[in-house]
């Protein structure tokens, strides 16, 4: 007995092909079923993260994203649909995720993460996938990741480039170790193809699946960077700062 909720026959049928993955198996699937993940926001990146995690059979998703669907969302935010223009993004996202996986438990929050709501929202989940377009949102999630000791998958893109790493409290540094100060040059609007945000979204979803199920080696203490303009990939060692104002001060 694994101690996790057993799979139903329907779940065994749906997840059969990934249960074949060596070292994952039915035990890995049971861990995903028992897991809950926050995806914030559900834009170009988060839409794909949430869709892949729903497809993979994660038990519960908490999705957070404010605002209504705009025409300029539709080149990349794959959970938003044309017929939902002008209506809340999280409603469109919830509907699409349920179409794919009706067994999925979803909590759709029509807010972006901020210092005020981060604690309560992070309390609902086991793991966070950070897909926010602004550093203050990212720092709010990072703080709660450290305080609540929950893994944080950090993924981001710009133009045809992307950066990805996985922070595991107690084993790695945190986002404030990597970027101690809010980068001044960053703007909310950025050039993006959906295929770029989708690529890094799939990778971030795979990191979440690995951390939750114990499969493979997550990108702990490493930063993956790639540029799809010329297909260069780098994986570099990153450090925990001994004087970090977040993980060195808050960790118990």
């Amino acid at each position, binding site marked *: 007995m694994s101690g996790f909720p057993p799979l139903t026959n329907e779940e065994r049928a749906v997840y059969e092909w990934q249960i074949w993955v060596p070292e994952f198996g039915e035990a890995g699937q049971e861990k995903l079923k028992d897991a809950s993940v926050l995806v914030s926001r559900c834009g170009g990146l988060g839409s794909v993260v949430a869709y892949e995690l729903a497809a993979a059979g994660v038990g519960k998703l908490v999705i957070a994203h404010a605002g209504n669907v705009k025409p300029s969302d539709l080149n990349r935010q794959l959970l938003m649909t044309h017929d939902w223009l002008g209506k809340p993004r999280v409603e469109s996202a919830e509907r699409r995720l349920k179409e794919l996986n009706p067994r999925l438990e979803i909590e759709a929050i029509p807010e972006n993460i901020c210092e005020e709501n981060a604690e309560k929202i992070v309390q609902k989940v086991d793991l966070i996938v950070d897909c926010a377009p602004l550093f203050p949102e990212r720092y709010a999630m990072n703080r709660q990741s450290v305080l609540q000791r929950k893994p944080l998958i950090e993924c981001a*893109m710009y133009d045809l480039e992307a950066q990805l790493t996985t922070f595991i409290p107690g084993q790695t540094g945190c986002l404030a170790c990597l970027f101690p100060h809010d*980068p001044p040059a960053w703007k909310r609007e950025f050039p993006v193809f959906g295929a770029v945000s989708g690529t890094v979204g799939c990778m971030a979803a795979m990191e979440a699946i690995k951390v939750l199920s114990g499969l493979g080696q997550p990108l702990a203490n490493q930063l993956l960077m790639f540029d799809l303009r010329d297909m260069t990939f780098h994986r570099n060692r990153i450090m925990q700062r001994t004087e970090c104002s977040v993980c060195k001060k808050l960790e118990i």
Partner: protein
Amino acid sequence: MKIVVEYTAQVKKAAGLSREDFQVIEGCTLQELVKQVAEKHDATLKSILFPDSEELHPSILLFVADQQVLWSESLTLQPDQVVMILSPISGG
């Protein structure tokens, strides 16, 4: 000696290319190289790397041979090493 410098994101955009070779003197430190990089290019790159002082902006990361190195560390470069100058991105 030759050092290969690679750029990412906004730093790459400001430099106008993704990698280039630098000829530096034997014993050149990482700090000296980064200052040389800023001097070689136009003012946009310098304003990202050194916006208001002789200190590298803290959001810019440096990697030497795939390993992060802090600006405050005094590191002497070795011939043919690859140095990456990374600017943070947050697109979601």
